[in-house]
């Protein structure tokens, strides 16, 4: 009940409304501080192993955004992270931790591969159906976790992670069995999808596909949903205070299932996008980790749509620039993983930053709260 983070005067003297910084600015500031700390620690580690951090970071930049090809590839890396970042952010808005973005994404990808391989249709329809089918499958997959939570009380963190494994093994079965490409070579993969089911490449020579546009449209739609629609209001209300929401006639169970479905369908759509845009066939072992990096993306982006877009771009840069860092500055690519992990660490420990504030104000606030 106590709001411990506010400046002391708000809590001590309720009638006074302090004009402090808007929460968006505070969040941005905190994210930037976390980033700076992560990069600084990364630099320290490079110095310890005898590398030049300035050289490494400039290599990171030039090889990710330095030329047209790199920039396109960076954006191609960014695209799925936008989808999975949004997946988590939508869930977080209703205080639901959908950690199953990976499984939902892969199920969506598999479905898109199936549509792409098994049917023929004119291009816009074929690719459209593939994307839609991917979204639906992703939504149903996470909806399962939503139903389990709403009606059986199964915590969504457990069920979504478990459903990831179910998805991995189901997909393994499909690509080594029913959906396996029939060739003389015994390769566990599906056939290549039809040309009509492929998203066009929009930034040659890079592999960047029109999937980026789908991602930006989805981001806009999610922003609209959360901020502008009555459903978005309800999902935020349920996330913040389910008792008050119920008292106001909102049905928390229904909202929970719906949010989980929406969240998973975004991941499923992302899977369909990478299938129709980048991979073009489902190969066994496809395990890009987008669903897990998404946790960092959503955290760093503070679960807001603009934040997720920015954070996805940052992680896209890191992924693309890692190789450049290795070849140019001889810094292992694992350093990037370390920096990513540090970002998560600093973002999820806001109290670290609060140490700079006067502790006494918090104690006083607690008295009144």
């Amino acid at each position, binding site marked *: *009940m106590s*709001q411990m983070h*506010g*400046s*002391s*005067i*708000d809590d*001590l*003297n*309720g*009638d*006074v*409304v*302090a*004009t402090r910084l808007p929460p968006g600015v505070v969040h941005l500031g905190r994210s930037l501080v976390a980033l700076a700390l992560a990069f600084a620690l990364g630099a320290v580690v490079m110095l310890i192993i005898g590398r030049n951090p300035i050289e490494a970071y400039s290599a990171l930049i030039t090889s990710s955004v330095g030329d047209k090809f790199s920039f396109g590839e960076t954006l191609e890396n960014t695209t799925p992270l936008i989808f999975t970042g949004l997946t988590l952010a939508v869930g977080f808005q209703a205080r639901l931790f959908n950690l199953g973005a990976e499984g939902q994404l892969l199920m969506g990808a598999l479905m898109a591969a199936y549509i792409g391989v098994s049917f023929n249709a004119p291009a816009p329809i074929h690719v459209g159906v593939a994307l839609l089918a991917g979204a639906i499958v992703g939504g149903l997959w996470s909806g399962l976790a939503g139903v389990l939570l709403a009606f059986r009380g199964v915590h969504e963190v457990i069920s979504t992670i478990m459903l990831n494994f179910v998805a991995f093994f189901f997909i393994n079965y499909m690509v080594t069995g029913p959906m396996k490409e029939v060739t003389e070579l015994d390769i566990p993969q599906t056939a290549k999808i039809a040309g009509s089911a492929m998203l066009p490449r929009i930034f040659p020579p890079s592999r960047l596909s029109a999937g980026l546009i789908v991602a930006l449209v989805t981001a806009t739609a999610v922003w*609209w949903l959360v901020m*502008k*629609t*009555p459903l978005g*209001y*309800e999902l*935020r*209300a349920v996330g*913040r*205070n389910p*008792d*008050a*929401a*119920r*008292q*106001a*006639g*909102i*049905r928390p169970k229904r909202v929970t299932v719906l949010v989980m479905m929406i969240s998973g369908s975004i991941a499923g759509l992302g899977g369909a996008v990478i299938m129709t845009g980048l991979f073009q066939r489902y190969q066994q072992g496809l395990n890009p980790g987008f669903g897990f990096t998404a946790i960092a993306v959503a955290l760093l982006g503070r679960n807001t749509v603009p934040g997720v877009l920015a954070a996805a771009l940052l992680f896209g840069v890191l992924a693309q620039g890692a190789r450049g860092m290795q070849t140019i500055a001889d810094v292992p690519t694992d350093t990037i993983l370390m920096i990513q992990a540090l970002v998560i660490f600093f973002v999820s420990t806001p109290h670290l930053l609060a140490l700079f504030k006067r502790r*006494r104000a918090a*104690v*006083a606030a*607690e*008295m*009144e*709260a």
Partner: protein
Amino acid sequence: MPVTPIIEMSGITKVFPLVVANDHVDLEVYPGEILGLLGENGAGKSVLMSILYGLLQPTSGQILINGEPVEFNSAHDAIAEGIGMVHQHFMLVPPLTVVENIVLGAEPKRSGGRLDMETAAKQVAELSRRHGLEVDLQARVEDIPVGMAQRVEILKAIYREARVLVLDEPTAVLTPQEVEGLYRIMRSLADAGVPIIFITHKLHELIGVCDRITVMRRGKVIGSVDTDDATPALLAEMMVGREVILEIDKAPATPAETVLVVDGLTVRNDDTDRTLLDNISFEVKAGEIVGIAGIAGNGQDELLDVLSGLRMPEAGTVSLGGSDVTHADRRKRIRLGISMIPQDRQREGLILSFTIADNIVLGEHRDATFATRIKRNFEAISSYARKLMKAFDVRASDETVLVSNLSGGNQQKVVVAREMSRDTKLLIAAQPTRGVDVGAIEFIHRNIVDMRDRGTAVLLVSTELDEVMQLSDRILVLFRGRVIGEVSGDEATLETVGLWMAGHREVSA
């Protein structure tokens, strides 16, 4: 008076970036007295006490103890100088025993630094006996009732040889009997040389227990009065800054058609097999206020849950305007015209991290005025919120302020404004004035009566007997899940209703 005050706070000023929370405040506490510190939420009482307890440092001014200036940089300094404080929310360690909590941080030790719990228990038992502070020394704090936890807090302060004891809203969590007990303890302590500063915003608590009352308003001390000269009306006026009507003036009710019929309602707890509501039946007509009195925990929570649709009864029916709504969910009941001011505004009534505007439309957020399926109408929401804020005197700079930044009284007004502005047949008001100050109480009571006069049926559920007595046209008393008595508002006396609340039916029959 030539007596030196034990505590003298002189010219205390505390400036925060946007507000002067304390403005040249003078406060003296004399030996043997109980001093009431009265003021509305946000008047600066808590800031002043935080300064006394070392949690905040004054911008200017000084504190004298027995005439000697002292400077507190932390609560530790203040405790060392004999300032004891019992917070509204207890600062106890639940898994530890009572005696362990009391001596925590000041434990008697044997040679070699080993704990000497026997000596500790002996010392605490002696203190407890001397001041009538009954506690079960070996019980774990998590198992003891709230009233005892409070006595543990008081013992903790006395054990640390407090020279003055500050009690912050101590009665908010107590039953009437426990309140009586607390007053006796306060008097005993004051007589034994530990004066008390008693912080509250409830008027009737002060008169009768305090010797002197100091009133604060907007960061300043308005004045101090001896209790003998104080009347509730005088105190209210000092506190609010204008005359306050403590007794609501209302015309006789003109009940019309029956709105709510509750028939044979029974609720059981499956786990304990206890009957929580036992065959309750009553009616509420349009244009009347029916008050449900009773000590907390006698079935009010269950009745409210059933009426609002959050809980299904084991037997019995609820009907609204002739149609059976026993099994209708909350959403449907809202549509049929049941408004509800919930007992606990922060848990059930508000979404604290939402703006005032978003809270004001909560429950009506899908109405055609405020939204289509795909877009909320923010202009309509804002202007409606501004209108209600004005009508219900919600004090904030505008409707985009987060409700978590409002005082308790203003938060309650947001809930009241929302629920009372609906086009509704039945208003269920549960503890409608809990934790709000006297000016706001008057305002909320006035609005409840106005709603009745416009033809709304009102069901008032309150553990504040004064409130039920003042507002109700008919009073029902709940005792252990049954309606133990019913009386019309004119004929009700405090004695009768009080006896019923304690379960004595036959005496008054």
